[in-house]
């Protein structure tokens, strides 16, 4: 009789399965991480941290759930932890009134016709930058909600699952997040028109 460790063979299987999933989905995770953090270095760190945690808790992954949906929750938690570790960045409360001049309230975006198929919208780097900066100004929970809804295309139910909150909370955050983004993007464009902001 002898004592043996039977762990080695099954760990290898787990590792192979996880590696396959990671290689398949890491680009999607990175894109979300980029939109959440606003820059490449942080996006890489966040992606890495998310997958480290995912592998650690892989035995809790329910195979019936799409792997990406499981990752969204992990990314969200890792993102919040990442922000907690940093000195508080300047973030605008959604309740603060923005400095909008009434006469400019109806300024239109300088964008191609949005009535056309959204997939054919060609976005300038400048506009992408505006939008990313507006996203960066959103509080984290609102930012994640908007990113998951409008960039990743998740349903309200999927978002609620990823963020561990109620449907009502998803609705509220998404609606207020979008309104905020609209005002921010307009504000940037007005400031730029007045020559106050570098494009």
């Amino acid at each position, binding site marked *: *009789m002898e004592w043996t460790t039977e762990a080695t063979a099954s760990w290898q299987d787990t590792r192979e399965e996880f590696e396959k999933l990671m290689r398949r989905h890491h680009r999607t995770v990175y894109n979300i991480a980029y939109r959440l953090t606003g820059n490449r270095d942080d996006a890489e760190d966040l992606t890495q941290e998310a997958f480290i945690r995912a592998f650690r808790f892989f035995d809790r992954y329910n195979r019936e759930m799409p792997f990406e949906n499981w990752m969204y929750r992990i990314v969200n938690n890792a993102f919040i932890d990442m922000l907690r570790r940093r000195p508080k960045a300047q973030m605008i409360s959604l309740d603060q009134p923005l400095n909008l001049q009434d006469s400019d309230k109806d300024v239109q975006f300088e964008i191609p016709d949005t009535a056309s198929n959204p997939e054919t919208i060609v976005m300038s780097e400048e506009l992408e930058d505006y939008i990313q900066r507006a996203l960066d100004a959103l509080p984290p929970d609102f930012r994640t909600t908007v990113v998951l809804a409008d960039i990743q295309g998740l349903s309200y139910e999927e978002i609620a699952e990823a963020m561990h909150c109620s449907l009502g909370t998803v609705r509220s955050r998404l609606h207020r997040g979008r309104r905020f983004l609209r005002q921010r993007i307009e504000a940037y464009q007005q400031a730029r028109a007045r020559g106050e902001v570098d494009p």
Partner: protein
Amino acid sequence: MMNCSKVQNLLSCYIDRELPGEDMLAIQRHLDSCNECQRDYQQLLQVKRLLGAMPVRAPEPFLEERLVQVVFSNSKPASTWRLTIPRPLLRPLAIAATVAGIALGTWYFATQARSPIQQDLTAVAGIANEIDHATIDAYLSGKLRLQNPPVIPAEIPLHPYDNRPSLVSVRYYR
């Protein structure tokens, strides 16, 4: 009835089609006749479309391999230990374990503290716990000799059904 305030609060849900059919229709009707809400709707729709049109940011090529390196070097397999018994030994071992279990159980019962009558009867009749009627009859009729005769009251309660000495009462007499 959908007023402007209510409609404006529901516009995101309307855009995402996350409302029941009748609400969607009611809002649609309102938007058809209200310029202010229609403008609000168009602007919110613009935000959604712009976000959806943002280019997908791709990671640098090195990230994939770095992830593999970092993720798996950070973890270790959980160890579990197991006793491996060679197959030929399995059956004899199982039998030995059962026999040992029975022997242990019997020894345990035999040495447990009991009332004197039980101990004597057990020793004589080899009965672990129950004292059957035959044994009691044998004792009462003098056919069964006990080393330590218990003090049994003159009247042994009779079983309500068959008038035989009650098992329970005899068991607990000292």
